[in-house]
């Protein structure tokens, strides 16, 4: 067997880490969008990723649609699921506390998992990579082309989201809701519409994450919970509400996990993520990029 150089190994782990980390980052960004508007931690965020992956499997493998069409339909379908979730579970709860609504999202996540198990069964599914399965060799490491897709699409999502929140009227209105819901209502922003948009948008991002990661890591019905946990860890590490923090922390978490799995043991990789989360919460509860002032006012 050919011995791989240390540099090669390191590069390999780094790329794997960044890829997985991108997915954590997307999940964390999804958490943040909903959190920013409502202060709800949506524990069904991981289920959006799972649904994104499995629906993508359906559209490509069963419906045999061309990749771009399948990708767009997947996002549309999961966005619809997110919007329905908000309309039927969050919106009807008038005057509920944030904690109640968080518990509702946990219930919804269990429901989604159950439905997915009925529809797709318990086996994991895979789809072919977006463009060929021939790996690219960089510094002695074999990089799957899908990795490039993951990085590219994550970057596009982050850029588009930034533009949405900085430049568009609705994006700013969502930030205004996050800032001060009462003042937002007084200038005529319909807060319940913004909440709906936040769920739809988070679901869309979850779907993207699921669709792009399935060719690398497969997808099965019960993947959501762990993804949500890691994504949540990244969101908290980055400072709840901070997009920039979520992306950095997500990728950081992915790299640490991957290095741990590579050099120590893959059995410990989940523990490392949680240990890291505890450490951050212990040293800097507002997260690495969180606003200390803001975190004092917020309920969670």
């Amino acid at each position, binding site marked *: 067997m050919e011995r791989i150089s240390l540099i090669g190994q390191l590069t390999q782990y780094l790329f794997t880490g960044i890829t997985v980390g991108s997915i954590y980052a997307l999940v964390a960004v999804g958490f943040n969008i909903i959190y920013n508007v409502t202060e709800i931690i949506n524990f069904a965020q991981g289920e959006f990723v799972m649904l994104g992956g499995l629906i993508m499997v359906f559209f490509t493998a069963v419906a045999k649609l061309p990749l771009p069409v399948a990708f767009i339909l997947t996002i549309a379908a999961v966005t619809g699921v997110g919007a329905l979730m908000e309309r039927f579970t969050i919106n009807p709860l008038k005057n509920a506390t944030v904690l109640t609504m968080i518990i509702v999202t946990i219930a919804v996540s269990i429901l989604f998992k159950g439905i997915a198990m009925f529809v797709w069964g318990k086996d994991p599914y895979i789809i072919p990579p977006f463009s060929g399965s021939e790996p690219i060799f960089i510094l002695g490491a074999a990089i799957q082309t899908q990795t490039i897709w993951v990085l590219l699409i994550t970057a596009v999502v982050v850029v588009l989201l930034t533009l949405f929140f900085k430049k568009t009227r609705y994006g*700013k209105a969502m*930030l*205004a809701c996050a*800032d*001060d819901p*009462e003042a937002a209502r*007084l*200038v005529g922003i*319909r*807060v319940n519409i913004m909440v709906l948009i936040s769920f739809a948008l988070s679901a869309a991002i979850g779907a993207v994450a699921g669709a792009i990661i399935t060719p690398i890591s497969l997808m099965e019905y019960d993947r959501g919970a762990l993804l949500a946990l890691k994504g949540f860890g990244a969101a908290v590490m980055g400072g709840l509400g901070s997009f920039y923090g979520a992306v950095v922390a997500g990728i950081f978490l992915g790299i640490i996990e991957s290095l741990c799995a590579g050099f120590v043991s893959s059995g410990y990789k989940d523990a490392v993520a949680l240990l890291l989360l505890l450490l951050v919460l212990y040293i800097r509860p507002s997260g690495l990029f969180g606003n200390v002032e803001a975190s004092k006012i917020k309920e969670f």
Partner: protein
Amino acid sequence: MLKLKSVHTYYGNIHALRGVSLHVNQGEIVTLIGANGAGKTTVLKTISGITPASRGSITFEGRDVTKVAAEEIVRAGISHVPEGRKVFSTLSLRDNLEMGGFIRRDKKEVQADMERFKKKFPILADRWNQMAGTLSGGEQQILAITRALMARPRLLILDEPSMGLSPLLVKEIFKIIKVLREEGTTILLIEQNARAALHIADRGYVLETGKIVLQGKCRMLLEHEEVKRAYLGKGYREVWED
């Protein structure tokens, strides 16, 4: 223009307004004075739908707005500058004003209004792209008022605009209120500083524990013994001497 008829409002179990009736005519400045906890802020919040009335009726320009939600009231023509300013602290000044014009469809006019306010208030122009949270209290108040004006309201509701500001800035705020009146905006104002409020307003109402106990022209209220004693701080001696 605005008419409240025996409005009752509850804050949870607290009966905050116990049958408040008042009206504001077109072009007037009307002020509401009263001690802390008398229910002044609740009156304003009830008008704008944040704490809806449980009984009674509110009409604005002939339309019943008793049950209209807070996010719709601004579309009816009422802008409420809330207590404590409540600017969008993480948004830039520019975006704060843009959000003030959120309900308007005339994009170009919104831009023009923003430019107009920028010229009018150099304090805002200097910090145009900074986060509103970095402004001082007085600057935030000016921003909050201009944000409310961006909706082009026919009635402006101001809740304690001078709260926590230096005397110099209080003067500045009152100057703005005067200019607004001259431009034809109708204003409902509540103020801790009853003397200043009664000097700038046309008519006033005195609120005590959720009820209107006195009303009239401000000139008359300024001379009223009870108002003087309780809210203006002067003439107190005359009262207890006899």
